[in-house]
């Protein structure tokens, strides 16, 4: 009888029991899924993007479905860092899994203040820097599409925290390697990608955009091949761990990212379609490794044959 395969993985000093995390903005603050998912089985929970002040988000409609995907323009509505710490973290810290706070700011100084506030909190295992949101007017993606700006904001946050620091990259760039290298040099412990792809839909009867924000971010199965290509490129460009995100619905999808070089993955839109996706992916990874006589998940990471 063979032993159960070992799913443990490490992202920038943070040990995970398995490589499957929830993507920011698709899993609320964890509690929303309590009755549907055994949260303690997850690799980690990444919470909705946090800002210094509570944010109200964009006017509706905020969502439109597309072929095998969806476009959202939520506009980073969130309770704000203080309410997160006072109200949401209480539930999350009772879990036995790492909680990663995703943060965004309009100015570099806001990212710095957010990181400083989170750094002393024991309940926060790591910080994910969102420099890639396509749905807020200032900041967000502006940092993620310019290597110098990405370097500066990463470095400024790095100085504030010794926690594992993940920088989340935007796909809305010509050369993903360039940005990946910039944030790695600035001291990021890992990079995660991709955030959503800037996109739009038009109602031909009214000739108006289907989203009040005009454009939004495309996610879901439709973006997986693009995400995979970018993860593969980024993994070749940097030494730090890469976290794969984009259209992952099944264990097979997650395996493609691992083979392309991702050390872990995040599951986003799939949580809406099938709330237990993450658990099915974890079970599926284990079954795949077992069936292929692979002892540990690290034995499959970056094994793409060319």
């Amino acid at each position, binding site marked *: 009888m063979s032993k159960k395969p070992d799913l443990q993985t490490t992202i920038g000093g943070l040990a995970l029991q398995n490589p499957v995390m929830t993507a920011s*903005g*698709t*899993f*609320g603050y964890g509690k*929303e*899924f309590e*009755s*549907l998912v055994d949260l303690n089985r997850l690799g980690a929970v990444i919470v*909705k993007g946090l800002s210094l002040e509570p944010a*109200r*988000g*964009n*006017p*509706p*409609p*905020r*969502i*439109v*479905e597309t*072929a*095998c*995907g*969806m476009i*959202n323009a*939520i506009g980073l*509505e969130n309770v704000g860092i203080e309410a997160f710490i006072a109200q949401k973290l209480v539930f999350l810290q009772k879990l036995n899994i790492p909680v990663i706070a995703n943060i965004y700011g309009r100015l570099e100084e806001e990212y710095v203040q957010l990181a400083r506030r989170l750094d002393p909190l024991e309940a926060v295992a790591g910080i994910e820097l969102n420099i890639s949101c396509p749905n807020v007017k200032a900041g967000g993606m502006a940092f993620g599409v310019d290597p110098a700006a990405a370097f500066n904001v990463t470095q400024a946050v790095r100085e504030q925290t010794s926690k594992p620091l993940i920088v989340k990259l935007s796909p809305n760039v010509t050369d993903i390697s360039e940005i990946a290298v910039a944030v790695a040099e600035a001291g990021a412990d890992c990079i995660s990608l991709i955030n959503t792809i800037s996109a739009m839909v038009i109602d031909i009867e009214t000739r108006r955009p289907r989203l009040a924000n005009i454009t939004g971010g495309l996610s*879901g*199965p439709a973006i997986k091949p693009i995400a995979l290509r970018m993860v593969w490129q980024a993994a070749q460009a940097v030494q730090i761990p890469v976290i794969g995100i984009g259209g992952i*619905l099944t264990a097979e999808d997650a395996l493609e990212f691992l083979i392309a070089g991702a050390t872990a993955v995040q599951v986003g*839109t799939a*949580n*809406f*379609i*099938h*709330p*237990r996706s993450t658990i099915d992916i974890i079970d599926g990874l284990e079954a795949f490794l077992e069936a292929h006589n692979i002892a540990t998940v690290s034995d499959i990471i970056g094994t793409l044959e060319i």
Partner: protein
Amino acid sequence: MLQHLATVLWNKKAGPGYYRIGLRCPGNFSAAVPGQFVMLRLVRRLDPVLRRPFSIHNLVMHGGQANGIELLYQVVGKATTLLSQLKTGDRVDILGPLGRGFQLPSGAKKVYLAAGGVGVAPLVFMVSYFRRRPVDLSQWHIFLGAKSREDLLSLDVFSTLNIPLHITTDDGSAGEHCLVTHPLETTVEQSPPDLICACGPPAMLGCVADIAERHGIACQVSIEAVMACGMGACLGCAVARRGEPQTYLHVCMDGPVFDSRQLKW
């Protein structure tokens, strides 16, 4: 709230482009209240990729227990077309019951229900729910509006109730030839109710909210929004909140039934 793999018990035409689907669910829907909804997914399909919200139209009762739910839906696009093709024994994946339903304040004796088109769906559950409880429906009124005679749904349910039923159609093919809000307002003027509950197209609900406001009557409306998750995770289902510019409520958590004064019309 739970996720259930439900089995189709029946899927019958209820009018031109309207269907009733009965679903047997392993979970228990006895705790569901009128106005709550489910998120339905067609199994093993990636297009449409998102679940679709549907109000609970009724419970399927078996030996005194609710062992399933019934939905009333109109075919308008991709998911509802595929749904209409399902046969007895097929499976669908449902998440629910979700959201906040209608709330009958104690002491509310006189309740007017107003439905436009397929908006009648949750109001049927409302009536059957309170009929099973020690609630006196003798002073209730029902107002049903539709495009045309064939679009009047659930008439059979309401006509057995001994409750005054006011019918209107846009083309005059049945009932009064006017909008449903017309007899509603006339009746409200003659005999103001304690509560109005309404479900229907946005323009109709705006008009009902306006009638309620002008007559100082409490009003609850069930509204729609595009939803991805139905459970408070995506924040996609925002609607403008009254009084505070650029602040939003979320239809799946704060609603879909709202006190009409909470919303900006």
